[in-house]
């Protein structure tokens, strides 16, 4: 049986992988936080994490239950 070259396997894996196929996003110390834009619950207007670049931010994810 013909041996599959490791670099070919790697290429196939890289081609198949997209960020959304990866494990859930997890913020890691020392890494830049991925940017996101979501609607403000009060106004519906878009707010991005990057809107606050230059300021220190405490990001709090919570639920209202």
């Amino acid at each position: 049986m013909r041996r599959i070259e490791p670099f070919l396997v790697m290429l196939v894996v890289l081609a198949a992988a997209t960020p959304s196929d990866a494990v859930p996003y997890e913020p890691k110390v020392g890494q830049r936080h991925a940017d996101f834009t979501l609607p403000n619950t009060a106004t519906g207007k878009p707010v991005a994490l990057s809107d606050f670049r230059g300021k220190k931010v405490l990001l709090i994810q919570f639920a209202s239950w």
Partner: protein
Amino acid sequence: MPVWHEGTAKWVKDGKLVLLGVTQEQHADRCRLLAQWKGFDWPILHDPINVLEATAVPLLVAIDEHGIVRSTRPALATFQADFLDKTFTDDAKGGRANRITPALKDGERSPDWDALRARAKEVGDAATWRELGDALALWGGDKHLDEALDAYGRAAQLDPKDGPALFRLGVCYRQRSETTGHRPGDFQAAIAAWGRALDLDPNQYIWRRRIQQYGPRLDKPYAFYDWVETAEKDIRVRGEKPLPLAVRPGGAEIAQPLKALPAPPAEARNPDPDGKVHRDKDGLIQAEVTVVPARVRPGQAVRIHVVLRLDPKQQAHWNNEAEPLRLWVEPPAGWQISERLLQAPAVREAVSGEERALDFEIKAPKEAQDKVRLDAFALYNVCDDKGGQCRFLRLDVPIDVRTLPADNPSKAEDKK
């Protein structure tokens, strides 16, 4: 959250810190009410589909002036010394370069729909269909729910192991079930999609909580929205008007957890034992049944939601001057039921057209298998506006409950 809200208030006021909230919640207005009650005056963003991929909440992340994560478990006692008073350099070591959420057009509240649609069709993989679904679900509003459902449905079909697509599919079904464009089976389809997602990742607590929100008390970690009434009362005492809620939480959403299902009241009597009450042959009322979770394990419980609505194709309304709507349920032998006779709350107006929701729980015996049918019926007073007749009628509501083998992971079903 209140601890951090109060503990950081001075730094926020002095401009040293930004508090940025993200709520993992379907209903933005419930979060608005919570914020009003607690005095949260910082921006809170809405993530109904868990696009940030949190596996549990609360989750706190300290992010410096360069956008670099400095702590994922900050402590209030050392927050100032460890984070706030420090000056950081831009020394990021990697991280996800792309955005988590769809990009918006400059200065607008919407993404480039056409580009996303074209890309989904051209690339045609699960990820691009999911991305289109995300854009529609986050920024499209109710009018784009059908298209979001189609996009997530395609993603889940292309990759049946795409848990986020399945979860978000369920969110959109549940959202549509609360709109005027709801279709029969939307709620059950939401529960089925969430169940499939949870099968893929049983450690995803955001997904688990959505099922538990509507599920049996035996499986609840806490009452989800029992705070709403207290919040509204406290806000009124302050002389303010509580922010309104589009969908008021009730039933399962405010039920307290239980360790054991109590016996149903012994005095309950079948209100039509011989089946003499005339059936609703004209279909003035339609019933929709949802079982949560979609299948039950032997020895465990499900919560059954029965919603009764006036058929929009008919011209009819509830008559509230006589006795209220009742639902009688006959449990199969060996199954324990929370209530056999349920009654809808009284309505002040003589006539009305609202939908009426009744829910109860049933626990399967340890030897339960396959499928059982609960014989149930509703009795109500309804007026047919075309003929001008008001009648007392019965609607039979058969309820099927499917069981799972005791030792296999749950297998929820797709919407039929």
